[in-house]
């Protein structure tokens, strides 16, 4: 039976049962035997190593009832559920990353059984190994730059006050406010660009994430830059010192640093698109 047939059959028969599927947290190599002792992932289930050669996927069972395709679509709309999954996933990744180069999986990467996970390791061995080499001895730092658009430029406000016709004065005030905001935004974008260029010098790779909406982050200001940098361990102190200097010198914008992260932003591109793709 082909993988597709088996997959279809298993998914069909398991939809209503409390069958388990394997949720993959991260892939690493040469994992010490005791590293996963007592480590629990989603649903409080103990995680297990699934090993092929030197590579190990850390995975744990989750109920198909919650993680099947249909259920997953609905569940992703549930903030509390999404947060629980994200934080558990991150906790497990953090534990594994203590032991060496680790690549986290994207949220909700699921396989029917451990044999399938092993097959994926076998077929993707070369590419996964290369990706682990790339992040070995490096960590990810996140940097965000926020533009502060709330402060009006004093000169602009003063010029608007000189007109005695109320309607016109109001329009002019609005116009100068808008201009002032545009200028503040341009200046923040430029500052963000300079920050990015300076920090990139100390990083081996960078990856831009989408700017975050203030509504989601609860942060003040407008997010002009949201970048992840892959920084060698030996450069970490210099990177943070430089980020600190840039932050202290920043005008009209605010710089925030997060991390160190496991190299989430420097994982593999879609393996299924590659020549050694499984099934």
């Amino acid at each position, binding site marked *: 039976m082909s993988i597709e047939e088996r997959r279809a059959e298993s998914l069909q028969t398991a939809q209503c049962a409390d069958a388990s599927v394997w949720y993959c947290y991260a892939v690493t190599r040469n994992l010490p035997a005791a590293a996963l002792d007592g480590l629990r992932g989603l649903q409080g289930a103990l995680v297990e190593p699934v090993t092929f050669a030197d590579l190990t996927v850390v995975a744990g069972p989750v109920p198909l009832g919650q993680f099947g395709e249909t259920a997953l679509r609905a569940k992703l*709309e549930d903030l509390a559920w999404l947060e629980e999954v994200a934080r558990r996933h991150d906790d497990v990744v953090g534990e594994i990353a203590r032991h060496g180069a680790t690549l*986290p999986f994207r949220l909700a990467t699921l396989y029917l059984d451990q044999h399938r996970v092993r097959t994926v390791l076998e077929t993707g061995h070369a590419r996964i190994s290369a990706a682990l080499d790339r992040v070995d001895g490096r960590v990810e730092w996140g940097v965000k730059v926020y533009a502060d658009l709330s402060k009006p430029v004093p000169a602009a406000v003063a010029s608007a006050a000189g007109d005695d016709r109320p309607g016109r004065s109001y329009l002019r005030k609005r116009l100068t406010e808008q201009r002032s905001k545009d200028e503040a935004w341009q200046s923040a974008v430029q500052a963000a660009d300079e920050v990015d260029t300076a920090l990139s010098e100390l990083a081996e790779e960078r990856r831009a994430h989408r700017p975050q909406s203030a*509504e989601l982050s609860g942060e003040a200001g407008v997010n002009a830059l949201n970048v992840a940098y892959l920084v060698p361990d030996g450069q970490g102190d210099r990177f943070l010192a430089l980020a600190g200097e840039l932050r202290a010198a920043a005008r009209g914008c605010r710089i925030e640093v997060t991390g160190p992260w496991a190299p989430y932003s420097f994982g*593999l591109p879609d393996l299924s698109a590659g020549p050694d793709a499984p099934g």
Partner: protein
Amino acid sequence: MSAEQTAHPAELEHRIGPGAAEHPLAGREVSLVDLLDRLLAGGVVLTGDVTLSIAGVDLVHISLRALITSVKADRPSPLRW
């Protein structure tokens, strides 16, 4: 360091191992929105057996739509704590 920085050395140690708390800029709790940036748009992408038959970008879209809806419905800004 500014007052808005809150150190959580125990959590950091748990997350990334000893030594991290020495970094003055590293003392912030992981915010959900930063984590989701990474978990939904980063990470190793393998085609699992149970796959959302939509692109990763759409997965992000769906989730963020969910977040915005939740934020509006429940509380003003729940994503920092």
